[in-house]
């Protein structure tokens, strides 16, 4: 068993969260609110030491006064809490949105669209190896039928019906695979906490 007070604090807080499994109780609520508070306090610390100090205060001390401009624009975020000047918060938001919208359009189209189309097309050289060729053809059929399934602008009748049904099959298999991996993920998190409780705290696991 550990005698480190911090391990005990971590273990008791872990048990407080786990107590929610029985029913909601004051210990769980306390732990939940503590988490929110500590997380925000940590973020304030990082913001000061790693951002404001290094990117604003140090350059200002070094004579680089240009940083005042983006700092003042950023400080307009504070106007959100002053009803009379709340409209000023639109300026830094507009800058951030305009930047990310402009950057993302060509990037997303290239990465999630063009490259993926390239990956779906079956080239003659893919068919040289029969196994690879078979998987490539199945992927092509799967992608097209999945896209057909998500086309809701027309009723799924005629040729759309069997094609979208094939799409459902691929989607169901894909979601089944996702569920299998989700089970693994959730259990892994539980394994990690039990490992901490029974090894680091109680010392039962050697």
């Amino acid at each position, binding site marked *: 068993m550990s005698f480190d007070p911090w391990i005990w604090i971590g273990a008791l807080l872990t048990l407080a969260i786990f107590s929610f499994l029985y029913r909601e109780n004051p210990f769980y609520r306390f732990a939940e609110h503590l988490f929110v508070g500590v997380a925000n306090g940590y973020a304030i610390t*990082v913001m000061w030491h790693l951002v404001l100090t*290094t990117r604003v205060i140090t350059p200002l001390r070094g004579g680089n006064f240009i940083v005042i401009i983006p700092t003042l624009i950023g400080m307009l975020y504070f106007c959100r809490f002053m009803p009379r000047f709340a409209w000023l918060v639109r300026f830094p938001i507009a800058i951030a949105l305009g930047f990310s919208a402009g950057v993302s359009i060509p990037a997303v189209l290239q990465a999630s669209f063009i*490259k*993926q189309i390239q990956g779906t097309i079956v080239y003659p050289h893919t068919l040289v190896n029969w196994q690879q060729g078979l998987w490539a053809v199945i992927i092509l059929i799967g992608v097209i039928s999945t896209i057909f399934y998500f086309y809701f602008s027309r009723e799924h009748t005629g040729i759309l019906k069997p094609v979208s049904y094939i799409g459902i099959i691929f989607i169901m298999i894909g979601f089944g695979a996702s569920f299998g*991996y989700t089970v*693994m993920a959730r*259990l892994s998190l539980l*394994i990690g906490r039990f490992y901490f409780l029974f090894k680091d705290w109680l010392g*039962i696991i050697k």
Partner: protein
Amino acid sequence: MKIWSSLLKIDRRIIYLAVAISVLVPLIFPFSIPTNVMPPTQVLFNAVDNIDPDNQAMLISVDYDPQTMPELQPMLKALLRHAFARRLPVLVMSWPVQGLGLGKKGLDEVTAEFNRLAQTAEDSIIYGRDYVFLGWPPYWLAAVLRMGSDIGQAFPADYYKNRTSALELMKRIKNYNDIGLIISIAGSAAPQSWITYVNTRFGVRVGAGSTAVSAPDFYPFLNTGQMTGMMAGLKGASEYEHLVHTRYKTTGEMAAIRGMSSQSIAHLAILVLVVIGNIGYFVTRRKQ
């Protein structure tokens, strides 16, 4: 028939207890099963193994927070062990604020593991020479695009408030041309963002360490080659630990491999629960 109806109405806390027992017992009484390595993990391992340590570095982005720590922290430590065993320089950064503490913890623990065995300064893992902890960028997209021309401008100071460009390693690692591989260890779609904005624009290879929940979503990128390998979940972490330990005989706790016996039994338990639920459903439905 009655037994099936009562089984279907069983209190949820009994199910919780069953899951807890199926996880706990193999942890206390582990059994060893040989680790089989899946292809995406092998591809990632080979990619890291083929980076030239004299000319390039590896960038690890800690894109997760404590919520997914049990799955992803072993991946970070395995990657760091791999890099340090090869004397491959490493840059570490974090996307979510809460990932910083985990990045620091992983670096401190693995560095200590290696330095415990080191006998000279050459053998030791030294900050600034062998690795740099860049810290957290306030606006991720701007920072990763900036790193394409100058990493020192994207991170003017590191986590310890040293001027980044003054560090020994950063005198030769300037931008993505000097990065052999970026590995995003993430509990979200962060690897996809790295591919979209960095791999597409700058051509630098991107690999991933992903939670099992997100892993299926990245297979289209593995298929096109936009993603160079992936560790999926705790199993992926155990595969990587196994590969690193087998090749480089690293020491240090291998938490992911340790968890595999629990993982196996717990999966079977969930399977049994689902099967019982379905049998009960069909039996009671037929009687009705």
